[in-house]
């Protein structure tokens, strides 16, 4: 019993980790319809910032806002050039542009941060354990579940229940109509991209304690994030959350019972979901007629 409870907590923390990788991408891809493959780079940049910040001796908790702001800044620069010209372009062009940029960033980060695997020096507070029915469970994972969960909640509220969120969602469907409401859609898209980059960075800083930071993490995270968001269905933030939970639980329990086939089972599950729901878990059926 205790074993299962702890495994559920593990599944939950892994789901939140997946969610953290997917948050920003969900915003740009699913709500703004912009395929941003530099997302993995933002995540890794955030991880590096988090690691460096915690190593510098500054207050540890400031690492998260720092990662948020700094990667957001990079996002703002990118939005100015060259993302802006590419919002109306086809996905294929966006893919090539952002993939190229992600290769450039990967190299720049390897240059700047070195090639070694780095782990954040977490404060003692986060290194502790609590006992869950006799099993030790890391405080850090609870922290991850709490912060990731509340972050998702805030974002969900912002997107589904505020005017800004409504405007962003409407913007994807029809820019013209949003313009007539007197909203500057270009600024709106900028806000979306910057926020997505910042969220990617924040996710990286939070996740570094579990994933560490090293060259190549950007690509791994990108793949995970892409799968989470697409399986969840475009245009729905709830779908992303649901899909992160589904993938997190399937992976965790597959690793528990059939560790050798964990990857295969997870992939198979995703293929199945996309075969049964061709528009993702909560994707709206695109009306053709």
């Amino acid at each position, binding site marked *: 019993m205790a074993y299962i409870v702890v495994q559920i907590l593990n599944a939950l923390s892994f789901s939140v980790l997946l969610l953290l990788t997917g948050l920003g991408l969900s915003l740009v*891809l699913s709500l703004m319809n912009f395929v941003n493959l530099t997302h993995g780079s933002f995540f890794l940049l955030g991880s590096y910032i988090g690691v460096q910040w915690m190593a510098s001796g500054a207050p540890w908790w400031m690492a998260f806002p720092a990662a948020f702001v700094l990667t957001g800044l990079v996002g703002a620069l990118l939005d100015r050039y060259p993302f802006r010209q590419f919002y109306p372009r086809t996905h294929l062009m966006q*893919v090539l542009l952002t993939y190229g940029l992600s290769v450039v960033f*990967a190299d720049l980060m390897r*240059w700047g941060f070195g090639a070694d695997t780095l782990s954040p020096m977490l404060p003692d507070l986060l290194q502790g354990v609590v006992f869950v029915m006799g099993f030790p469970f890391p405080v850090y994972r609870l922290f991850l579940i709490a912060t990731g969960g509340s972050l998702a909640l805030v974002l969900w509220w912002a997107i589904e229940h505020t005017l800004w969120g409504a405007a962003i969602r409407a913007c994807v469907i029809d820019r013209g109509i949003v313009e007539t409401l007197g909203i500057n859609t270009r600024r709106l898209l900028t806000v979306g991209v910057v926020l997505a980059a910042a969220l990617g960075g924040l996710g990286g800083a939070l996740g570094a304690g579990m994933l560490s930071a090293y060259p190549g993490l950007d690509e791994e995270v990108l793949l995970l994030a892409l799968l989470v968001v697409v399986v969840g269905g475009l245009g729905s933030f709830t779908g992303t959350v649901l899909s992160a939970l589904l993938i997190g639980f399937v992976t965790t329990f597959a690793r528990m019972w059939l560790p050798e086939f964990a990857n295969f089972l997870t992939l198979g599950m995703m293929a199945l979901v996309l075969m049964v729901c061709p528009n993702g878990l909560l994707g709206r059926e695109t009306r053709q007629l």
Partner: protein
Amino acid sequence: MTSRAWISATGVDTAPGRRAGGWRWLCLAALLCGVLAVFGDDYQLRFAAEILLVGTAVMSLNVLVGFAGLVSLGHGAVFGAAAYGAAIASQHWGSDLLLMLPVGVLCGMALAALMALVSYRSSGLFFLVLTLVVGQMAWEVVFRWREVTGGADGLRGYPALTVAGLPASHPLALFALALALAVASGWALRTFVRAPVGHAVQGMRDQPLRMRALGFHLGRLRLQTFLVTGAVAGAAGSIYPFVNQYIGPNAVHWSMSATLVIMSVLGGIATLAGGFVGAALYLVAQTQLSSWTDRWQLLIGMLFVLTVIFVPHGIVPALRRRFTS
């Protein structure tokens, strides 16, 4: 998101028609191949053969992406599965081209057909991710079925290629075979895209709904396209392990598929010749830049970014426009 939005907005004219001056490029290519065959050393010939084989796979991907609007991230797996199929078969039944080719073609078509069936109802980004997932499942099989595929280490040391019993492992012979395959595949794909079915495939890309109203079965069209492109990629894949003298799981990995897509876009998605131009540019840059600077990945990345900003339709259409106007 219909597949149309993926492609059509590039404004690429894929309407097949006679283009003036096409033969001039063909002559140039023939001249280049001739010079290589006469003056090229072993290394250059083998490298050229590799470019031709990868280029053939990219050319088939161009039909899938550019003509049918199906942006697949699983084409590398199709190519790689065929390569593995041939390499494994050669260990049991010898490595004659007359056997390798059908084995590769069948492997390629089988995996392509599986992708077509799995992605039957998908389009756009979902199609992309589904093909990626199926490709990754193939990778898992290759990576973990160590007794047969060699696992992470891949396969090497299989017999050298022969053609009807004659040895064909010399780089010049490999180059000639790759060239022959490239020409034959080019001809086959050109026939395909110019035939009624090729037009139907383009119609499916641009107006899937209208095509249904015209009585075309989109699933069948998609399956046909997958089979044809899978066969071509499979044929290229069947020779690849003998040119490279090695085949490993990376050839099936999604990053290989992504590389093929990038080559495709570099050359021009809606052209057949673009496949070779893209493959050549990418492979030459990848191999040569790294001798010059540690920051070669940065340069490669910049190459993609600059291409998409300045020649968004790819190099071949850009050249064509420049030399016809």
